[in-house]
């Protein structure tokens, strides 16, 4: 692992049964860096994301993570309790469908407070203050603190997911197509907000998208996936402006043509 990398992915493969969905993926992620995973549907992006976070166990290879207390650790060697601790404190996971990432029967404030309560916060007043602060940060009217997310628009739900994840000030956030359910008009505002928070908090992000526009706006680097493999990776502008692999060339031109 490079001395300043946050995460180092080595020869990582993932499978469903005997079917390989990711093959021998290797890359490093640095603090404050946003990496976008692009590729067509079924290319293995979500599987890779879940395997990086060890929500899906790798078939082979490993992920080394620079743990805040333990230093560099192989995630496969951590027990369930340690992994869960990472999931709910040091990492965030923003899902494509807000129904999977939010508790729909719980108020917005409760959604934001859940991680804090899991960490032992037992002061109602402080939980409220933090929730209000985060609703402001993600541009949701703090008056809505006691409303359930199923009364929110799609854009608000995604912003609430962001707040719920960032409230513990994680270092690493995984996002799986967070904008694909949003109207184009709403997307721009969401992406702006995301970009601002990522920069302000110095977050490292692995973001899955099939939208090269999103990658262009947010990503420092791009990994292009095809059939479970990385066929090209590099700085975003380089890959998008001067694609080397025929598949990337196809992706870029098909977007330009569209």
């Amino acid at each position, binding site marked *: 692992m490079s001395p300043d990398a946050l995460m180092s992915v080595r020869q990582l493969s993932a499978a469903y049964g005997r079917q390989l969905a990711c093959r021998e993926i290797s890359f490093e992620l640095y603090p404050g860096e946003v990496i976008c995973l692009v590729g067509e549907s079924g290319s293995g992006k979500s599987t890779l994301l879940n395997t990086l976070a060890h929500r899906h166990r790798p078939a082979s290879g490993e992920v080394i993570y620079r743990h805040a207390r333990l230093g560099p650790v192989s995630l496969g060697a951590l027990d*369930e*309790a340690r992994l*869960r601790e990472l999931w709910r404190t040091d990492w965030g996971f923003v899902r494509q469908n807000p129904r999977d990432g939010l*508790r729909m*029967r*719980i*108020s917005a*404030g*409760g959604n934001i*407070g*859940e*991680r*804090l*309560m*899991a*960490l032992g916060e*037992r*002061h*109602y*007043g402080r*939980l409220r203050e933090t929730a209000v602060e985060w609703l402001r940060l993600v541009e949701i009217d703090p008056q809505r603190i*006691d409303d359930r997310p199923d009364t929110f628009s799609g854009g608000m739900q995604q912003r609430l997911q962001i707040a719920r994840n960032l409230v513990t000030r994680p270092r690493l956030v995984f996002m799986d197509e967070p904008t694909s359910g949003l109207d184009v008009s709403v997307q721009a505002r969401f992406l702006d907000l995301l970009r601002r928070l990522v920069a302000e908090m110095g977050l490292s992000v692995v973001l899955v998208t099939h939208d090269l526009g999103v990658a262009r706006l947010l990503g420092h680097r791009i990994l292009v996936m095809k059939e479970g493999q990385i066929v090209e990776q590099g700085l975003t502008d380089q890959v998008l402006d001067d694609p080397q692999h025929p598949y990337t060339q196809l992706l870029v031109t098909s977007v330009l043509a569209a």
Partner: protein
Amino acid sequence: MSQAGYNFAYLDEHTKRMIRRALLKAVAIPGYQVPFGSREMPLPYGWGTGGIQVTAAIIGRDDVLKVIDQGSDDTTNAVNIRSFFARVAGVATTERTREATLIQTRHRIPETPLAAGQVIVFQVPIPEPLRWLEPRETETRSLHALADYGLMNVKLYEDIVRHGRIATTYDYPVEVNGRYLMRPSPIPKFDNPKMHRNPALQLFGAGREKRVYAVPPWTDVRSLDFEDHPFAIERWDHACGLCGASDSYLDELITDDAGTRLHVCSDTEYCAARRAAGHQGDAP
């Protein structure tokens, strides 16, 4: 020892041993839900089959049994269970908390403090405290294994959001021995403090869900809360209209067509004993 078609305390010895083993494990790990192979009982689920099986597994010929339902010894359910054990185990029964060695209960803990050596068996409809938000059993099990209990405070948080205070008034969640989260069964939260460091052995049986759990004598039992919304029990402006007690859980009765209200002890035996000792309320 057992004649054909008859066995002491209804259950066969094999089943009793199995339940006792589960109970020993439950006592060894306070608050932890231990699965057991629940048997068909001559009562439908919801009538306390879990509690009855626990009682049947531990009752001995010398035991003196008390059965209460909502604090009363006289409800149909209490009378049925009591006469069931009088018949199948031939044990003595009593209504007096102090005289009982074994108390089976639904919805209350007696007001008379329990003593060392006594055993109280709770009938439990739903044993899993995290079930309300997490329907998957595999997931609730790992939440318990990791003591990952933030969800429970989310529920209390939502209570305060909706009602301005923690509105859960019965089956109020507790942390046992600083470790396991436990549902105390639908007793009023008024009874929660009685579980804390109680000298008696407290056993819990859930028939439909096939779980037992336990709070051994003198174990810490803490009701969940927030620093700025601390746990508090119910209080009444009234004393018991019949016996004048101001330290007991009160039921409100409407006594006539004009809607006259009367507050009386829910624990009928406690109330009767106080009256027998000369205490009096201000009911006409």
